[in-house]
Each structure stands twice: as C-alpha cells, then as structure tokens.
C-alpha cells in the first residue's frame, strides 16, 4: 500500500504561526499509524507567499493536499479519513 505523505511546513511564517507545536506529530504519528504514514518537517511550502495576506498558516501538506490553520487534531483527522 502506498504510504500517506505528510509534510509539516517549518518555514518561518508557519513556524511562528504555530507549526512549531506540530513538531510533536513527528514523534506521535509513527506510534499511532506505524509505517502507514510518512511524516517530515519541510522548508517553506510556498503557500505563505502564494496565499499572501489572506492565507491561514500554519500549513501541512497531506498527499499533496494543503491543510490550512493546521492543528494536531486537524492533521490526525485528515490522516484518519485517508486510511
């Protein structure tokens, strides 16, 4: 089965707006989902620039899809939906 790919944006905009706290997911996800999910911290995903002032960082990318205003709960929910 193809793994679900999760990228937590750790660029400055996202980090300051709360992705710093999403780093916990890097430890949490393998425990929860084993090797079904591949999670990494990532440099700026470019969303902060393209969505500009009205964007809602922090962003997390799950299989290419962007989750805005990401929180731990939101990310877990998205992953569960995909599994």
């Amino acid at each position, binding site marked *: 089965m193809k793994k679900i790919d999760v990228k937590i944006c*750790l*660029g*400055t*905009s996202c*980090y*300051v*707006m*709360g992705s*710093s*706290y*999403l*780093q*916990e997911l890097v430890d949490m996800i393998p425990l929860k989902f084993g090797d079904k999910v591949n999670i990494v911290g990532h*440099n*700026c995903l470019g969303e*902060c*620039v393209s969505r500009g*002032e009205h964007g809602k960082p922090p962003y997390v990318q799950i299989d290419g899809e962007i989750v805005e*205003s990401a*929180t*731990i*709960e939101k990310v877990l929910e998205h992953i569960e939906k995909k599994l």
Partner: protein
Amino acid sequence: MSVKQFIQLKKEVLIRIIRAFLSGDFANNARLIPFEMRPKGTEVSYRCCIYKERAVLRDRVIAGLGFSIEDDDEITELAQYANRALERKKPHFQPLTIIDIACKGCAATRVFVTDICQGCVARMCMQSCKFNAITFAAGKSVIDAKKCKNCKMCISACPYGAIAQIRVPCEDSCPVDAIEKNENGIARIDYERCISCGKCIINCPFGAVHEKSQIVDVLKNLENKSKGVKIIAMTAPSIAGQFPGDIYQLKSAIIKAGFTDVYEVAMGADITIKNEAAEFDERMKEGVPFMTTSCCAGYNGFIKKHLPDIKKYVSDTKTPLYYTAQKVKSLYPSAITVFIGPCVAKKNEAFYNDNIDYVINYEELGALFIAKNIEVLDCEKSEYGVESSKQGRGFGVTSGVAKAVSFLAKTQSDPVLINGLNKQTINVLKQALREGKCAQGNIVEVMCCENGCVGGNAVICSAKTAQNALNKLLEKSKDIKKEN
C-alpha cells in the same frame, strides 16, 4: 498541544500593524485592521456578532500600538492612535493592559453545590464547614455565599464529589493576587501588586490580557537606520528553537529585518556567572546560609513589591541583560538597544535601565519576519562578535543558572530550584526567610516561569522544542573559562 487561538489572533494583529507601518499610510491602514480581519459578510468566529469581533480587534490593535485599553475613550480612532504611537518618545511603564469587552467577566471564584448532591444523611459537608456556611434546604445542601470563605473543605468532604469550585483562570494563575474583579465582574490589574510576570496573558481563555507592544517604537528606529542610527538587537538565551534554523541564521535574519547588529544576552550571562559565583563563595565564607539568584525580572519585581526582606539573601549581581546592554552602549553610545525575549517582565527592567531602550518579544519578532517576508532558513549563518559560553547560553531553562554558578563556584553548592513562582513556591521562599536558612540547599535559583524563560509568556514553541534546540547549540558551545 497546539497554539491557542487567541495567540494566533494577537500575532495576526501584530503582523497587520507592521504591514500598515511599512505601507507608507500607517494611520489609515491601522484604522482598517479590524475591518480587514472581519470584512463585511464574514462568518463570526468567536463572539456574538461581527461588530463585537471588530470592537475586540480594535482593542487588540490599541494594545499592539502600545497604549492602555483601559484609557480608551472609544471615540479616538485607530488612525489617531497610530499617529500618537509615532510621536511617542518613551513606552508606558505599565506593560500590561486588559480588554474589557473581551474579558467575559467570568463568574467570581466561589464554591457551590451541583445537581449531583444526593441530600445524604451523613451531611459531611455541613460538618466539615468551619464557618457554618452550609445549610440544608429542599433536600439538598446549600452554601451561603456570605459566610463561605472558599476554604474548600466541603469539596473534599463530599463522598459524591458533588461540590465544585468555579475558577477564574486569570486570578488563579496570578502568583501575587494582583487581579481582582470590579463590580461588573471585569478583571482589573492592581498595578501596585502586579509583577508583570505575564501568567495571566497566557491563562485567560479569552485572550483579554495584552502586552502593550513597543513594536512601533522599534519600527520607527529601524527607519532611522538610513540616517546613521545604529539599532542593536540583544537576544535572550531562550531564543534557541523559537525560530527555524539556528541562532547564526537568526542573526542574519534579524539584520535583514533592519537591525545593525545582534548580540547574545548570553554574553552578559557570562559576566553574571562570574560575579555571582564569586559572590556566592564570599557569602558562604561569611557564613550566610543561602543565596538566591537575581536574574529573573519577574522575581525581582516580586522581591520589590512583596518580599523586600529577602533582599539580604538575594545576589547583588546584575542580570545578563544589564551587562549586555552596558557593553553594547559602551561600544556604541548613541545606539538604540532592543532586547528580544520571551517575557513581559523585562519591560519593567528596561524601564529603569537607560541602557535598554526597547523590549520586544518573540511573537513580535516573528510578526516582523512575516511582514517583511524574511525566511530564516534561507539566511546565511553569521558569527557573533562575541561567542558566548555553554553556561551562559543555558540561562533560559530551569537549573541553567544554578548549574552555571555551581560550575564556577569554589564552594560546594547545593542547588534548590524554584521552577515557577506560585503560591507554593512563594511559601518556600517565605519559609527560608523566616527561618534564616534554606533546608533544601544553599543556592536558590528562582525562575518566575515554569521551565524557565522558555516557558515565558511570549514564546513561539514548546519548552521541549526549545530544550532540544538548546541542547544542540550547547553541544557546540565551549565551557566558560575558570579563573584561578
């Protein structure tokens, strides 16, 4: 743990204030912030209606511009506030302010009987109450609010767990009882008692307590850089992990944001360590039973306002920021100095020290990076003029200061850690003062915030993330030199 919603809001307001400043039409764009954050037709996220949301945002902008919300007359427009912020010469000395209309006026702290009460025969609650505040009516216990002293004996006495206490988070979090409610139940800070520790800022679930920001004052000075004004950033030791990248990339990012140069406050910590270790040795030789550290601004405020008698046991050594600012001003007497840290209490320290011109926090620096589109990870590493020691860099976490002093002290040290000022730990200090000795040890490190400065009111990341980043930095840092 995810970041709390109101902290996001506060940051968003700051970003918009900075953008408004940079736009060239500060007054008008500042005026528009509440409308841009809640344009016509937007869904109402938190409050009863869009008008109230805008009203609360307006107050947040007032605080972000550096003014007291309490003093607002509701007539003055944000545009006028923006202009006043530009004209301001010195920030206000009270660094905190409360938004009336965001403060929900939570029910006052009280103990009350819930529906779970079974109206039992034992009536342990009545027996446990020393103030005769509990009576029995309509098959249930009732507490007479006039007699109740909130001692909570009945809560533990009830076998059903039927008695509960309503809590007020801001009051609960305040270690010095500086928050009281006015007749309308709205929180008020008693500035005579307040030590500016900032605990209420993070604990009010409505985000009603704000720092009065000095960001506009700093922006103004950054603009003057072109006129030859030097503006020097002094970053607190707790900054490791607060931003992406390492502290060397961060230095470049801060310079890119407009500062002339960056110094680590850990540089001043190295002087603090030497002086404090020497002082500790001397005091121990003289037979003084214990000494407390003196670098925490919240603790210093606490001593001044609530426990002045303990002064004789407190180290006379100055704070790392004191020595850093002194050094910077001796190198560049006309420079503007800006402390960047996690803590609102430092604004008090700065107010009484002419070498420290302004204080901004990590949230404000982060907002500056975002508004100016600065990506720390894309920045080159820059070396610091003075490379600080491992011990100095460790000052921002609990046990860091005690360890550092112990490292240089010649006397055998036995550290006691006050990891956060609260009612219990304050009692430890009071007891030591009363008894003239500290049973637990001879060097008492006092950190007003839990986990140390990395637990401050304006941090970007968790204490754990900060600790991990710090560990990485410490691996590469050198021990402070021991003198013989």
